[in-house]
């Protein structure tokens, strides 16, 4: 077996180990008591300098939550209705009482997302695109925090061939990323990492057959 094959196998084993080795299990005590059926995603707060990041991110989050088995309120409609009611400022909505939102929409739980980072940093020949997010779900009945998660995803293209060809390839990738960095795959990956990992993600929702039956994993 040549060194490359060995490296790849070691790599594959490390990846498997990375999945098997569960990070610290989240405490689902409050989540289980409430067992929310519906989740209201409110406008996203933004600590990055990219003013479009909250809207772009909003286009990625309903799908994985609904696929997990929850009723997810229509995100664009909710955003517009809140805006019509004078609540277009995400920071204001996040600072408000989740029980009030619960009354307005009839939601069981409210999901708050904060964008910590959403940027591309450039070196001469390489670039790193970073998306970092904090997710929090609060009960719309009691205001209690039910779940939270933090994700940071970095995309850094690397030369694979080495030599001048690899460097050029890298420079080209960096130039493309600089022109229009695509954050969407990173946002999808972050959502997946937040929602779908056993021990730290979201328990199955009411439209999943495992609703209330996955207590050994969550």
């Amino acid at each position, binding site marked *: 077996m*040549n060194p490359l094959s060995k490296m790849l196998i070691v790599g594959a084993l490390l990846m498997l180990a990375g*999945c098997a080795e569960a990070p610290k299990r989240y405490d689902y005590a409050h989540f289980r008591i409430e067992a929310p059926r519906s989740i209201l995603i409110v406008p996203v707060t933004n600590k990055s300098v990219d003013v479009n990041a909250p809207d772009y991110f909003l286009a990625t989050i309903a799908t994985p939550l*609904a696929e997990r088995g929850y009723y997810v309120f229509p995100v664009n409609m909710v955003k517009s209705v809140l805006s019509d009611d004078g609540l277009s400022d995400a920071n204001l909505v996040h600072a408000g009482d989740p029980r009030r939102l619960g009354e307005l929409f009839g939601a069981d739980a409210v999901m708050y997302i904060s964008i910590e980072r959403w940027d591309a940093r450039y070196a001469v020949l390489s670039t790193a695109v970073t998306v970092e997010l904090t997710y929090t779900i609060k009960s719309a009945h009691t205001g209690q925090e039910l779940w939270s998660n933090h994700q940071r995803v970095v995309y850094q293209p690397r030369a694979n061939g080495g030599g001048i060809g690899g460097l050029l390839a890298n420079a080209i990738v960096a130039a493309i990323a600089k022109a229009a960095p695509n954050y969407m795959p990173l946002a999808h990956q972050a959502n997946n990492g937040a929602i779908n990992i056993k021990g730290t993600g979201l328990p199955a929702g009411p439209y999943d057959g495992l609703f209330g039956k996955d207590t050994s994993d969550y």
Partner: protein
Amino acid sequence: MTLRVFLMAPILVASLAGCVTNHQRYDWGSYDPSLYAYYKDPTKAAEFAESLAAIISTADSHQIPPGIYAEYGYLQLQEGKNSAAVELFKQEETHWPESKVFMDRMIKVASTPTAQSSTK
């Protein structure tokens, strides 16, 4: 070397896939990219509406994701098509009882002529 990398790639991909549960419960059509395109260019509301209409007309009713009827209804309301909006809000409520409070409220808004302007 290229061949070996080629052979190893599926194993790496499979090991990544093992980390996540990834089955599709619903037919989302082009929901995510259409909403993204709409946020990128707000003049593309019609395209976003079309993508929602396409999901409703082509997917089996039990595969229509939560929020799609309502989202489409809201765009109809913004177009001033209040009765179409009301029908869609009712559909959302029938398929998803969790939406009842919100949909009842929106049906009231869409049925009150004076309230219409405030939703614009």
